[in-house]
């Protein structure tokens, strides 16, 4: 649910303007960290960004519901914090061009998605010292989804409070959103487990800490 992109005109300017400013600041910081990135790294980042968008378009049938993945957890593990945040920003920007999420809220959408993605690599590296890579990927993705989903819920709650929505209705909305939030954590983590299980067998060097590539966490 962290990629239910917020459209223009729904949130008050007091929320989206600081979000945009903070996102641009983080992009500048990330760009400093990535200034020595090779064109191949940028191309890999672009391909995984495209995979995030492709995954968002896929419909995963789960009983009566259809779930749309984000894959920002595994992508965050594979790319590192700075690149993962850039991927989140670029994905939000491209989606805003087709009306999926607003122009003015690109920053907030990127912060919601990117904050989780930025934590994925450090969480994975810490966990992979004790656990096997698929389990570490699963747990790192759970952390990612927990953070992104919680931020999304916080943005929604703040928006409702600013717009003077009654506490009963906020509670009702939270009651609907919270089970979806938990389902998102479980689904994304299980998919991430599968991704890591396959990569460990076929290209373990793509996972951090397993070989020469990819580069150290940024």
């Amino acid at each position: 649910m962290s990629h239910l992109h917020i459209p223009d005109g729904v949130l008050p300017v007091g929320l989206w303007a600081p979000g945009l400013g903070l996102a641009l600041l983080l992009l500048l910081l990330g760009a400093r960290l990535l200034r020595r990135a090779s064109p191949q790294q940028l191309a890999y980042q672009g391909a995984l960004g495209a995979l995030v968008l492709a995954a968002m378009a896929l419909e995963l049938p789960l009983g009566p519901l259809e779930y749309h993945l984000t894959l920002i957890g595994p992508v965050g593990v594979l790319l590192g914090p700075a690149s993962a945040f850039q991927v989140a920003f670029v994905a939000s920007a491209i989606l805003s061009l087709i009306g999926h999420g607003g122009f003015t809220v690109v920053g907030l959408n990127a912060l919601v998605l990117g904050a989780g993605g930025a934590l994925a690599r450090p969480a994975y590296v810490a966990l992979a010292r004790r656990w096997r890579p698929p389990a570490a990927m699963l747990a790192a993705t759970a952390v990612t989804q927990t953070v992104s989903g919680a931020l999304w819920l916080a943005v929604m709650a703040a928006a409702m409070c600013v717009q003077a929505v009654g506490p009963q209705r906020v509670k009702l909305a939270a009651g609907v959103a919270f089970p979806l939030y938990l389902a998102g954590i479980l689904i994304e983590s299980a998919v991430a487990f599968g991704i890591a299980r396959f990569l460990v067998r076929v290209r373990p060097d793509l996972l951090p800490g397993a070989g020469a590539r990819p580069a150290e966490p940024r």
Partner: protein
Amino acid sequence: MINTLAQIDHLASAGRTTWHRASALSKVVLGSELVLLAVFAPSLRLLVGLYALAWGLALSARLPWRLTLVASGYPIAFTLLFVLARWDGTAETPLRLLLRPLTASLTAVWLVGTTPYPDLFAPLARLLPRSVGDGLFLTYRALFELMRRTGGLWRAVRLRAGTGGPSRRRLTLAGEGLATMVLYGFERSERLYATMRLRGHNGRVCGCRHFAEGSRADLWVLAAGLVVSGVAAWLWRTP
């Protein structure tokens, strides 16, 4: 979603209207004006006026109305959350809540439907850090290819009964399938790197430089901008 984007992307390159001939920079400025007015407009009449103007732009660009309606209608589902939360029994509040994002998304569809992506990204890439600007181009370039492959993979998973059985198995299988896309993305980046080196990559994926080249068609964009400003000045203080 991506199919809609692919159709709009095709229209941007194949279209021959005045809007298609106008420079990307002037259209980005007009689009920004419309979006910001929609976001800040205090008046319902102004919002209705802006929405009508955005439809005028989209239809005069000969974008198919059904495609435009579908592409610009995505915010409805999300905005309904707020409509329900702020329901006060009047028609004004829901209309106000719906028209803001709808006008913005319709403007986005008009902009993307009349501007090929290298022209559209070029001015944005100049404002963003290098790696982010390059990321816009590289991600969009890879998108349709990745999407086609992912769609094929999904069909294969379904045909081979990968969508049956307990959820845990299905999700893990889906993950393994998507991991092949990660591998493909990595191999693709190696090929692209070799191509970029052969073509003398100088540290920046540069968009077309003619995004700011003016033409007579830009006068129409200017006229549209003046109409939008006029409507805003006229209706700003109305209820």
